[in-house]
């Protein structure tokens, strides 16, 4: 099963020479004279934030997934269909999106433009809000007005999806680097047991930084994006079962029609950008276990359970709270893989709120993230689960604040008491995203907002509302 990385690039099949490092970023390969030699895709930051490197993955079902080429590794691209700015049009035959950007005065210096063109091309098919489509693309020149106007004017070009050849499990071996791409969970677990030191790569939106920005070259990578079992996603009446390899983009599409999870959907739309959500996974966020992982507080508040799998012991289940053991530390054994997340849906009548405080609304890492699940009785709070990110070494519950609310009346004073109790639960730290004092005051403000959400559901309570 040792093979060559193969994908479609701008509709043309490409088979990379065997010595091509599978851990090379797609961006470096695209731009290199001895790679694709296509310098239209730019490097602006090498950390998946500016979007100058945006390319689009074309799916067999016709959907278009913009991704950051700086974070995507070549091994992950096996079997995918990639389109770059050069593959849209050029010269005498520019694509209508390219023409609209030029004619709409939507470019000034032009360095961010190819990436924006690709986000716009995906948006023309995928729809949604223009701001959301642009959240992963920074422009320093225009002020965005003309770009937003172009995005709002676009129509889908109707181009049919390409059909990349089906792929089996594969292994890419270059000097000093091996990339395993198993197709089944059994294979993945066997590889995990045999190579516990290998990078466990889901979407790669976190690990990709170590390659792109920090220029690391891992010896062995276990890429999980081809594992069929990890891609399963089922919506049940009381819960969701989410394969650990399901991208945020797919998860969002699945929960978008569910009114009980509307707050979670709105919150996930602020997680990274479309580019990040097109690659990033819930399993990856849990595995990274960063205290500012945005997916974690809702998992805690809703009482999610993880399904962990190993070749030796089969499956076990663990509540998320028990899985997170410390700063970027988890209960995952060296031979285990996170297989799935069982996510209970909010009970009828409960109030779910998912909150995020960051300097910028979109594509920003949280200073504070929070998820609250409130169950109300007759004028009394029957249950409260309050989970926070960015307030401690791990995402965590706030037990004293929860206790202050349970059995208390639905009144401002109850939430003031919970806010006061929060200072006993959590001791955040200072950093560039916010001082400890701001984090605490902001988190307390989110609890006060929860009161208004419960007491005055008619009110607009968010500045972006």
């Amino acid at each position, binding site marked *: 099963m040792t093979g060559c990385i193969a994908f479609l690039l701008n509709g043309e099949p490409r088979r990379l020479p065997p010595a091509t490092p599978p851990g090379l970023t797609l961006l470096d390969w695209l731009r290199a004279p001895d790679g694709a030699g296509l310098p239209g895709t730019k490097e602006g930051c090498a950390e998946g934030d500016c979007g100058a490197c945006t390319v689009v993955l074309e799916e067999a079902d016709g959907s278009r997934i913009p991704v950051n080429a700086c974070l995507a590794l070549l091994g992950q691209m096996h079997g995918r269909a990639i389109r770059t700015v050069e593959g849209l049009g050029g010269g005498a035959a520019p694509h209508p999106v390219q023409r609209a950007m030029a004619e709409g005065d939507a470019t000034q210096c032009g360095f961010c433009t190819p990436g924006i063109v690709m986000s716009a091309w995906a948006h023309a098919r995928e729809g949604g809000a223009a701001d959301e489509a642009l959240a992963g693309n920074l422009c320093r020149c225009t002020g965005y007005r003309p770009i937003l106007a172009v995005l709002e004017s676009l129509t889908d070009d109707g181009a049919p999806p390409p059909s990349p050849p089906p792929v089996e499990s594969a292994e890419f071996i270059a000097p000093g680097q091996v990339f395993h791409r198993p197709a089944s969970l059994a294979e993945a677990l066997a590889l995990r047991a045999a190579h516990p030191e290998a990078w466990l790569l889901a979407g790669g939106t976190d690990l990709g930084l170590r390659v792109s920005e920090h220029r690391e070259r891992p010896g062995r990578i276990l890429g999980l994006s081809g594992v069929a079992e990890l891609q399963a996603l089922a919506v049940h009446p009381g819960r969701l079962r989410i394969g650990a390899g399901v991208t945020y983009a797919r998860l969002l599409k699945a929960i978008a029609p569910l009114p009980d999870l509307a707050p979670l959907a709105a919150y996930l739309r602020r997680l990274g950008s479309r580019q990040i959500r097109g690659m990033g996974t819930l399993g990856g966020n849990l595995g990274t276990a960063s205290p500012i992982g945005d997916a974690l507080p809702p998992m805690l508040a809703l009482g999610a359970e993880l399904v962990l799998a190993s070749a030796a012991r089969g499956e076990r289940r663990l509540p998320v709270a028990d899985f997170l053991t410390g700063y970027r530390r988890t209960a995952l054994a060296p031979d285990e893989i996170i297989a799935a997340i069982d996510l209970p849906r909010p009970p009828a009548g409960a109030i779910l709120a998912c909150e995020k405080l960051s300097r910028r609304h979109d594509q920003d890492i949280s*200073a504070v993230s929070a998820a609250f699940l409130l169950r109300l009785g007759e004028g009394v709070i029957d249950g409260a689960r309050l989970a926070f990110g960015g307030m401690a070494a791990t995402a965590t519950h706030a037990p004293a604040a929860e206790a202050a609310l349970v059995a208390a009346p639905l009144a401002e004073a109850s939430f003031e008491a919970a806010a006061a109790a929060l200072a006993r639960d959590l001791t955040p730290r200072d*950093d560039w995203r916010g001082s400890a004092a701001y984090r605490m005051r902001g988190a307390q403000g989110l609890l006060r907002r929860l009161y208004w959400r419960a007491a005055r559901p008619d009110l607009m309570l968010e500045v972006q509302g």
Partner: protein
Amino acid sequence: MDTPPPSRTGMGAALRQDSALRHATGEARFLDDLPEPPGLLHAALALSPVAHGSLAPLDLAPARAVPGVVAAFGPAEVPGRNDISPSGKAAEVLFATGHVAHWGQPLALVVATTRDAALAGAAALRPEIAELPPILSIEAALEEGALLMPPQVIARGDWEEALAAAPRRIQGEFRCGGQEHFYLEGQIALAIPGEDGDLLLHSSTQHPTEVQHIAARVLGCDYNRITVQCRRMGGGFGGKESNASWIAAAAALAARLTGRPVKLRLSRRADMAATGKRHPFLYRWRAGIDARGRVLALDATLAADGGHSLDLSGGVIFRAVTHALNAYDVPAVRITGLACRTNTVSNTAFRGFGGPQGALLMEDVLHGAARALGVPVDSLRERNFAGGPNGAETPYGQALEGDLIRRVWAEARRDADWEARRAEIDAFNAAHPTLRRGLGGFALAFGISFGIMAMNQAGALVHVYTDGSIRLNHGGTEMGQGLFIKIAQVVAEVFGVEVERIRITATSTAEVPNTAPTAASTGSDLNGWAAHQAASAIRARMAAVAAALWKVEAAALRFADGRVTAGNHAMDFGELAQQCWAQRVSLSATGFYRTPDIHWDPVAMRGEPFFYFSYGAAFAEVLVDTLTGEYRVTRADLVQDCGRSLNPAIDRGQIEGAFLQGMGWLTCEELWWDAAGRLRTLGPSTYKIPGSREMPKAFHLRLLEDSPARANTIFRSKAVGEPPLLLATCVWNALRDAVSPLGETPRLDLPATPERVLAALRRGAQVRQP
């Protein structure tokens, strides 16, 4: 000058940026996209890991031992001078020697066959530094008297007496932060050695001439050996004025010493660590006011953090102190500008160049006056505007146009529907339990010209070929601001041809020498006139040929629509060019322009340093969450004076983009150093420039109509690069309005992050509940 006839592509046409379509197709080549020359080496900088210390001579052997590394260079290898000072007035080194003065300071350069090998080589170096306590704040620098240059003081009248005599005395202190340029294309240079010491230097630079000078200084060669070329930058904003020079000089050094082409492209992290930013400022002021809020006297100190070295801080302070009164008149005043020396990266030019920082002062003074009198701040503006019943002259002796200040203010206020919205906002604030809205305005007077008088010059080179096609070159650089298309429009206007006949070419020191940087908003003013001069010289020669041919007066000739006509005579422009060649008449000319009528006495700090002023006004509305400090700018109304716009599409783009960039500086962009002086916001994941959602949802802009420049500018247009950045100050004022009820404005330092807004709300609440 007569009003020129309307033209499809000449002066006043709303043409798009010259490369717009090629940007969108990816075909526009930025420096890193150029085909790599054979034998290319990649370079990486080794940067200081500490903020301040004594540096032992650096052992470069560990870098040289890394596979793929070809060479490593430190200060000892510099054949010329280890000196990159743009002013030539300070000791500023390319590579630290004996002493490191900021975290991220370049120590050495490593070149290798691959970029990764060069980075690994640089990372392998182990500098030995005996750490010294760093100065990391303006306050600490002031306490230690650490200044980069003597204070710059502008004074008028007996300010001490006027302060003492004023009916009310008020005072204040506040600060604003720095700003990373965050050009999307990072700093980059490619040096290609030629024969006999020649060097072609591709540089992403706003100042090719300075790149040439500094590379020659570092190499120890004549300027004529070095040709600097720049077709386009992926953004500049001042960050590629002086900082591009040392990066290019480092690449040139490695190319000279290895004999091979060398590319130095900084990673985003290295770029943010090693290159200068906008100057943060600390303000302390005392003012005397009367009972109606007229500011009678003011004594203010504007202390800038210049970083570890002088760089362009002298010019930044000059612009800060000359813009400290902005559009306002204060009869008795002293403004003291200080450039503090700290152990941080050397701060540099950034769009506005100290002007935006200077203009914040009067905002705080007016807020202070409003607080003292318990009146809305906007009610005090007209009372204090320059001109009208007040003095029109700046404290340094140049007249402002009070009628234009009042006109832009009134028009913006009308566009903003101020009266109706004020009432609506007050009603909303009274009713909502957690959200507050705020409304703020701002008016602007920004002086146009370089503060260093000698820099106000430009050159151009125009060729007409015998088919009538035209080649245009000038000293200005294209960084996305649309300069190239504007200058091409000027030339199209002179020759009466469509702009498509004009070939825009890369800026090059080989074509137009001894140029000024493209900066200070002067690009189209200076280069437009220079190109106009060159094109007019050729046109005059062509006209003479046609006049002789047709036996008419040259004055009777008309150049329009690609033709030359006189009475019944007519000829294609190209046909006339062919005729000129046949008659051995030159079709090539240089053009040169120097801004007239400007002067400055740097000792007296008096003069008329600006050719003219650009005016503008803006209002913004914000919606603030009192629980978390989160906010959004919901609406903005801008009026900007562009004179008679050369290109309204380009000007609109400049204004909107500048406004959002200014908003970024004042709101979400924060540079964060840790206690050891290490910058921790080193990329867009931590340093947050505005995204599309930050754009005001209702974003209204008007160019001031029927307002040709009164100075003799090119086609009576006005500069537009920097002034509208200052308009974003209205967002600060709107936030101050939102966080405080009438007359209780708490201090709100900048950037006004949600954290600072929440803190200001708490202070405001404490004031309200004594």
